[in-house]
């Protein structure tokens, strides 16, 4: 699905927060449909800012961001909702409604696809239930469909988060530190899921990571940010320790890697 869709282009993008913090500085960046991009940088480097600009959760101070050639609207309204419909997001803290079932959570990804009154009275069309179930299938937790989200482990909750994004049938998936609250084993499973989904469905995928080894292991293309500026853009295969040093502005330590045996 979504062939030749899911391109992103930043042109002279700047974001300055009300408190003066610079979140994005003169960003020019182009991402092609179907790419798997990992964004690295120390905390506060502007990784989340970049992702959240793409679906309009953060507004541009100047410059533009386009998705498939259309500018991301900078104010709330129908146009922005239509864009967000095509962009799924995955969060570090999962952001599930814990009191609701897994299925209800995944159906939130269908909100923009059905008439408002249907969602309001929980009268989801069969097609949309089907899409939600297929999304759960893709992350391998169909058996948990009717369980309350609060009863799942962290890794399972993040899978539901992915399923919710998939239920949108998106052209782009934005994953903001998707594994930062997970243990190493689960981390690798979730990263593999994301890569697999990217390959199978051709959804453009942007993942924020702060672990260097994960970035190298799973990234196709790596983008490095420092103080909101693009300081590295290249293939994951060619990235060197030197490059990472440039991105982080310091020698990296074992805090920066997930599996200690990778370093040194």
């Amino acid at each position: 699905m979504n062939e030749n869709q899911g391109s992103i282009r930043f042109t002279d993008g700047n974001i300055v927060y009300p408190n003066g913090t610079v979140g994005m500085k003169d960003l020019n960046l182009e991402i092609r449909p179907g790419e798997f991009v990992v964004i690295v940088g120390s905390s506060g480097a502007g990784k989340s800012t970049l992702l959240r600009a793409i679906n309009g959760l953060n507004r541009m101070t100047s410059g533009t961001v386009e998705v498939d050639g259309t500018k991301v609207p900078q104010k709330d309204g129908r146009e922005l909702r239509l864009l967000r419909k095509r962009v799924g997001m995955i969060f570090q803290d999962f952001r599930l409604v814990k009191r609701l079932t897994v299925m209800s959570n995944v159906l939130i990804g269908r909100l923009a696809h059905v008439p408002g009154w249907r969602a309001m009275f929980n009268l989801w069309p069969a097609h949309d239930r089907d899409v939600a179930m297929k999304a759960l299938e893709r992350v391998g937790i169909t058996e948990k469909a009717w369980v309350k989200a609060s009863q799942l482990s962290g890794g399972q909750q993040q899978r539901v988060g992915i399923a919710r994004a998939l239920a949108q049938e998106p052209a782009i998936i934005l994953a903001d530190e998707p594994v930062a609250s997970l243990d190493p084993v689960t981390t690798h499973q979730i990263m593999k899921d994301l890569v697999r989904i990217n390959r199978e469905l051709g959804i453009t995928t942007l993942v924020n990571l702060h672990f260097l080894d994960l970035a190298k292991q799973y990234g196709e293309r790596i983008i490095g940010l420092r103080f909101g500026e693009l300081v590295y853009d290249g293939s994951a295969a060619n990235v060197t320790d030197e490059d990472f040093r440039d991105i982080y502005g310091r020698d990296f330590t074992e805090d920066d890697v997930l599996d200690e045996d990778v370093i040194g």
Partner: protein
Amino acid sequence: MNVAPPKPARNWPLLIGTIAFLVGMTWWSGHGIGFSLTELLCNLAGGQRLLQESWPPDFAFLPRLYGPFLETIYIAIIGTVVGGILAIPVAVLAARNLTLGRVVWFADRNFMNILRTLPDLFWAMMFATAVGFGPVAGALALSVFTIAVISKLWSESLEAIDMGMPEAVRAAGGTWLQMIQFGAIPQGLQHYVSYALYAFELNVRASMVLGLVGAGGIGMILETQRANFEYERVTMIILAVLVAVLLIEQLSESIRKRLA
């Protein structure tokens, strides 16, 4: 050198000043309303007579309380349900993190404050004038009262919710209404139920008082019996009300505890 500092000396001027101020204020107020201890003592005999006439309670009167009692409960239920539903939009729009802009927030906030400032008895008299004396006026008055109670409490707990979930709904392309329904309200639901039960407790109590101004229920029969000097029946009514209120509070509290 870890010696505790010496205990600070008591601030005598402040203490004496405070006591003098309180005594002065009380005397001034008592003087203002013409309170006199000697008169009170002389009139105690009247109070004693009243107590004697009020005892024992007239148990034969109990069956006749059944109808008015039920009416009181009806009033409380309607008030809680109608008010509870109407309180939802009022509370959401009064929560700073969920509202639709500053103007709406400000207007709703003030609307809420006006409802809360005017007492339930005032509303009962207003509605009694508008729709006539009786339980309907009482139910309407309590609906307004319930909106005031629930919206105030709930808007504050809605302001404390985790905004991550609403943002996730937004990010998926949901509308404002969907953000509220799927992102915000599920987080505040527990509090809502708890406040609604609390409002029901208040309403049962209030609907007894409302009867005094002709808004139906047990309060109306209480007022008639008092006016006819049937103090033994008055005692009976008060006892019955006491038991009922305690029972309802116990029930509601046990449900609320289970929710927490």
